[in-house]
């Protein structure tokens, strides 16, 4: 069963046939988590680094921001029985336009926000495909935990 994770959206799953997929990651970032023992997977597609900019929006939709979406992703997976020490974390997205001015570098800041949160919480990134100026599609399958990235205009590869 294919579950589509929208923009500024998050889903977790524990049924063996499920696959979570998110399309059109530009500057946005997609994170997949997978617990190989409990066979639980989650996928978050966030758009912006920091919820400080709009607290009300963060309450309505925590998946919009890195600092509210990432904790929620892990929490929901824990609720299904996943454990932090077993979690495999993979990251894709964070692209940038060709910018020397620095006005349009949300991709980079999205990635820095994630690094900061993971560092503070002792979470390791197992694999990543970030930066550049491409659009990406990210998916994670159950029960295998196989994570794939498709780069628009290019092929699919396992992450």
């Amino acid at each position: 069963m294919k579950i589509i994770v929208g923009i500024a959206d998050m889903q977790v799953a524990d049924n063996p046939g499920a696959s979570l997929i998110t399309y059109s990651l530009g500057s946005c970032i997609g994170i997949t988590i997978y617990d190989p023992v409990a066979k639980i997977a989650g996928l978050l597609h966030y758009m912006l680094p920091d919820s400080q900019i709009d607290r009300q929006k963060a309450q309505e939709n925590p998946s919009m921001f890195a600092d509210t979406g990432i904790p929620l992703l892990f929490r929901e997976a824990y609720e299904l029985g996943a454990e932090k020490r077993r979690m495999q974390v993979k990251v894709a997205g964070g692209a940038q336009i060709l910018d020397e001015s620095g006005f349009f570098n949300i991709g980079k800041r999205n990635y820095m926000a994630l690094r900061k949160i993971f560092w503070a919480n002792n979470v390791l990134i197992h694999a990543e495909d970030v930066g550049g100026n491409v659009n990406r599609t990210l998916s994670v399958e159950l029960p295998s935990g196989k994570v794939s990235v498709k780069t628009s205009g290019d092929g699919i590869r396992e992450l």
Partner: protein
Amino acid sequence: MSLVENILQSVSELPPFPVVIQRALQLIDDPRSSAQDVVDVIQYDQSITLDVLRLCNSAYFGLGRTVDSLREALVMIGFNQLLEIILSRESVKLYGRACKGYDLDEGDLWRHSVACALLSRIIAKRLNRDASPAHFTAALLHDMGKMVLSKFVEDYFEEIRSFTQKGSLSFVEAEREVLGIDHAELGGRITELWRFPCSIVSPVRYHHAPFSTQENQDVVQLIYLCDTVALMTGIGGGADGLSYHAHGEVMKQYNLREKDIERFIILLEDRFQLVDEILNRR
């Protein structure tokens, strides 16, 4: 026949320009027209009327009462909103096909274009300007050139990509280098052919090079910014990705900061529900 001639000739394969948009746009240009004229244009088209009413009664507008006539809809949501619903809905017909060259599925380019059009409203508001249906239209049409150029991009994709991967050229520059014409210029020609005014042709033609023209500078820069923000979100994004140059001068000119871009994205995410509402019936 040269490649460019070949490309220009295939403009004729585009779907016909939707009559309702054409009539609605004539009304925008005519200062004597009134909201009632718009109602007159669409009231005989039952499917549009039904869609407008359905959208007015959707969660998106949250009007808290049932709207059951076009006249009432007009009172409740206003002339500009009504026009924008009609334009967004009708433009599905223009962008219906998939664009393999850009690795875009059916509807992707329409999504990107509507995102851009919604941003024209969001950014205009931030700049304390009136929302302009002409800007909305220019934003909606800015990527028309891709519909035609797609099959040529597909044929020459590896060459184009070799230029962008070297990092020296943006996608639009690489198109020009390899094909002799790019999707922005082609879009300019298409809108000229459809007899659009300069205020729409210029932003379409210069949406990747906002400082290359003196004409209609203001709308050209606005549409450039809308497209850039829309590209960043990835909504309806394709193989060209974010491979376009930034023009930070536009931000400086408007006195906007990085944080403003983030706010635009938040507002866009809210408004984008409109797209789902339109598509729900399809």
